[in-house]
Structure formats: C-alpha cells, structure tokens
C-alpha cells in the first residue's frame, strides 16, 4: 500500500507540490484532476520514486519507497508514464512481456498473462504486429497492457499509477481502458489515475483529488469534488452538474 504524508517538492526555488497527504487504498481507483501545470505528473513522479521529496515521505507498505528497489518493488508497483518512446520494432507481445521481467514465472505462465493483459486492454488483436506499425492510441493500449501484465492479475498490496492513460484513445477505448482499470482495482489493487476528462473521472473513480497550483483543493468522492463552484474556481470553467440519467454519478456539462 502506497501512502505519503505532507509531501513537498520544489523545482529550483519554486514549490511545485505541497501539503499532499494521501493513502491509496486496496480496491480503490483514485482520480487526480487539475489544470495543466497543477502538479499532477509531479505527484505521480514522487509517488513512484522518480522525484525525491523535499519534505515528507512516501511509504510502500511499511518501508520507505526510496529503500525499496529492484524486482520486489516492481512486483508491487507499476507505473504508466504519459508518453512512452520506443524506437525499436518489437512485436506487441514482446513489449507486453517486458512487464513480466520482475518475475520468474516461466514462459507458459507469462504467455498466458500477456494474452490476458492484452485482452483487458482490448489489444489482443494487435498480437504479432510490430510496435512501430501501431497508431498512437494502439501503442498507448499496448503499454497499458504491459503495466497490467506487470501486476497481473492484480491483488491487494499492489499499486498501479497511470498518467493520462486515455489521452490518445478514441471514445470507445477511453471507456474500455478505464473499465479494465476498474476491474483491476476490483480484484484488490490500488490505482491512481491522472485524468483530464471530468466525466470519465466521475464514472470510474471512487475518490478524486483536485489539484491547483501544486496544492490539494479537494480529496473526496466524485459527488463532493465535482461541484460547479470548485470546478469554476480551479478550472475557470462554468459548468452544470447533473446526475447521470442511468447511473447516477455526476455528469458535468460545460455551459
């Protein structure tokens, strides 16, 4: 389980993230929202150990994250960055298979997991193709499958951090991707996902963290966070919020 207290990160003399206290709970999808430059990716960088906190600490279970290394950490924490650059023509299942690197589970089991993860990311049909021949959205789904394979099948104690996993996807795959993430969490893993689409966040997340200028504005259920006043204050956007006619979660409509 990943948690942090009073996290603060500076870039030069500028504080880019402060006052973050957060605990990622098993089985929960936590969405992070905020305008460009609010500190979302910085938060993810700190939570995965890439950025060293200037104040506060990040804990993975009972140990400090910076003390966890190697395969043991990789078996519990997987990270999907915003953009992945891969300039070599691996086959799709080879890319996903790299997610199995922290394990010695054997080729048969790895192949099963790769196939399952590809299926979950709705990318099973890409199997056998060269990564370089894929479109941007297809590549994004392949990388999602890779991080899913890294934690497959997903259980309590594991954490998945996703930085805008839907940024290049068509509307259908935005939903299938987040549905896959949702199911992953339902099996017990904790998920933190950075999103820009407020309606996707409302539908698939259990809790939302709203950031502005590196500070947390709200951390609560979607119903509590996605209110017209706070969205106006943070995004400068005039919105109507209504319950979804069929599902009941908040539906955000720009005025």
């Amino acid at each position, binding site marked *: 389980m990943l948690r942090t207290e009073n996290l603060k990160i500076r870039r030069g003399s500028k504080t880019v993230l402060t006052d973050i206290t957060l605990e990622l709970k098993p089985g929960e999808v936590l969405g992070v929202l905020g305008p460009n430059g609010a500190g979302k990716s910085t938060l993810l960088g700190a939570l995965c150990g890439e950025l060293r906190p200037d104040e506060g600490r990040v804990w993975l279970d009972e140990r400090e994250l910076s003390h966890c290394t*190697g395969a043991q950490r990789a078996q519990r924490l997987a990270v999907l960055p915003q953009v992945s*650059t891969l300039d070599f023509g691996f086959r799709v299942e080879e890319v996903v298979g*790299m997610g199995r690197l922290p394990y010695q589970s054997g080729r048969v089991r790895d192949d099963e997991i790769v196939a399952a993860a590809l299926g979950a990311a709705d990318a099973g049909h890409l199997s056998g193709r*060269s990564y*370089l021949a894929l479109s941007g959205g297809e590549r994004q789904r392949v990388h999602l499958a890779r991080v899913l394979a890294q934690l497959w099948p997903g259980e309590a104690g594991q954490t998945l951090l996703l930085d805008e996993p839907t940024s290049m996807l068509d509307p259908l795959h935005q939903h299938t991707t987040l549905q896959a993430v949702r199911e992953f969490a339902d099996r017990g893993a904790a998920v933190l996902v950075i999103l820009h689409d407020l309606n996707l966040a409302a539908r698939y997340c259990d809790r939302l963290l709203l950031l502005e200028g590196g500070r947390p504005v709200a951390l609560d259920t979607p119903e509590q966070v996605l209110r017209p006043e706070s969205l106006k204050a943070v995004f400068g956007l005039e919105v109507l919020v209504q319950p979804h006619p069929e599902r009941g979660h908040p539906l955000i409509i720009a005025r």
Partner: protein
Amino acid sequence: MTTLVKPRTLFIGLSLLCLLAIWLSLALGPVSLPLLDTLRAALRLIGVPIAPDGLEQAELILGQIRLPRTLLGLAVGGVLALSGVAMQGLFRNPLADPGLVGVSSGAALGAAIAIVGGSAFGGLPESFGPYLLSLCAFLGGLGVTALVYRLGRRNGQTNVATMLLAGIALTALAGSAVGLFTYLADDATLRTLTFWNLGSLNGASYSRLWPLLLVTAGVALWLPRRAKALNALLLGESEAGHLGIDVEGLKRELVFCTALGVGAAVAAAGMIGFVGLVVPHLVRLLAGPDHRVLLPASVLAGASLLLFADLVARLALAPAELPIGIVTAFIGAPFFLILLLRRRA
C-alpha cells in the same frame, strides 16, 4: 513488419557464413592456398592427425600469418558489433555507433599518445608494449565515452541529439590532437599513426591478439546476461527502473563494456568504423530487436563482415593492401545515409 527469420535458422546461417569467412580468410591472400589444403593444414594446426605431405608451407603461412590475422578479424568484428549493440541500447537509438559518439577516436588518441610517448622514450618495450597500448586506447575510449555521456545528460535524461553533437565535437578534438601528433612525428611513428587511423589487420601477431581476445570473450559473455534488461531499457530509463532494473548500474556496465571493447579493438587493429552501426541493424532487420538474439547473432555477423571486408582489403589492390577502415567506411557510410533517409520517411 514481423520477424522474418527464426532465431535458430539465423544462428545456423550466421555460423555457416562465419565458417566460410574463416576458411576464405585462411586460404586467400598474396599466396593463395588451395581450399582443400587450407582445410587440411588448419585441421593439422588444431591437432587432427593428418599426413603432412606437402603441407609444410601451407601450415607455416597459416600458423604465422593467416591464423592470427583471422583471429584478429573475428575478435575485432565481434567486439565492435557488440559495442554497437551496447551503444544503441544505451542511447535507445538505432543510429548510435561507437565511432559516431567519439569512442573510437578517443581510443585512437589514447593509442597515439602511447605511440608518440613511447617513441619519445625510445620505443615501447616488446614485452608489455601491446598491453600498455591497449590500456591507453581503453582509457582514451572510456574518457571520451564518459564525457559524451555526461554532456548529453540533463535533468536525468539522456539527450541523444546533444550527445551525437558532443560526439562530433570530441571526435574533431581528438582528431586534431592525433593530427598534431602526426605533424610532429618522425617517419616511423608517422607510419604507425596512419595505420591506427585507417585501421588494418595487417601485421597481426599473437602478442597483440591476447588482450583483445580476452576482452572480446569477456564482453561477449557478459553482455548477453543483460539482454532482458537491455530490452527493457529500450522502453526508457524510468520505465526500465519501474520494471525493477538497476538502470544506473546497467548504463555503467554498457559504457564500460563499450570502452573496453572498442579500446581493445582500436589498440589491436586501429580505427575501423561503421561495423558497430551496420551489423546490429542488419541483424535487427533479419530477426527483430530482442537482445537475447541480437547480441550473440551480432558477434557472428560482425566477425563474418570484418573477415569479408578484410578479404576485399587484401585482394582489391593485390599485392598492395588497402586499410580495412577504408573498406568498412566505403560500405558503411552509404548504408548509414540510407538508414537516415528511411527513418525520415
């Protein structure tokens, strides 16, 4: 595009190619030996009891001249190809090459310093001269690699464009230093320096061979252990880190192996460009980018390519001999341009 050749087929094909290259390299030259005699003499040399009738001369040529030269070609080609794979993995860019980022010229500078410094002190002693030369070439290569690597990094990211440009600048700088030595050198030293700059397998001797064979064997055994980590590194440094790989350690190993390999190759045969670029590319085209196949296959392909290039160097202007660096550059430079244009498309 999917994988064209199965790894097994590739290894069988490359092994046969390599054996053919060895055979031809042993047989052809100023004194061409009949292929069958070459085979029998070679078998005798490795201890197979065959009647020695009429093979004395062939055995002498093989043992004293052709065999060390062929071994030198195998080792240089193999280790340069491996270094190319390591560089391309390190920079996550299929256009990186030990020659392009300045490793080779750094090694040549190290060798030049050793040669000129040695001649200033009355010549390098025969007993440890080759080792000192290898050491200087290695240190030169390591120094330039480390410098290029440092210059190319900002905020924990390696910027490939910066690094290639830094490599060009340092190559020019090392080249000017070698040029200065060339200008100041006396005739005998000048000849040796020219030899390093253009590369040649001529004058191979067992004493010059040993350091290189050791290094090649070491690098060829070490790098494949990191094949999976190299695959993951191609995803990006942070991605590899999230997959549990000690990225900083891996990068240090790659820089070290490259500097060691290229340094030893330059010390033994001078600057031979483009092998490290062309060979990994050809193997990737045939079998895909998986390092578990790429590394061992590149050793075989690099060794074969260098032997064939050496055959061209030996035979094109026979009885005179071309420096092999000219041959590999003549093949490699257009190949590089084609790759550049294809990537832009």
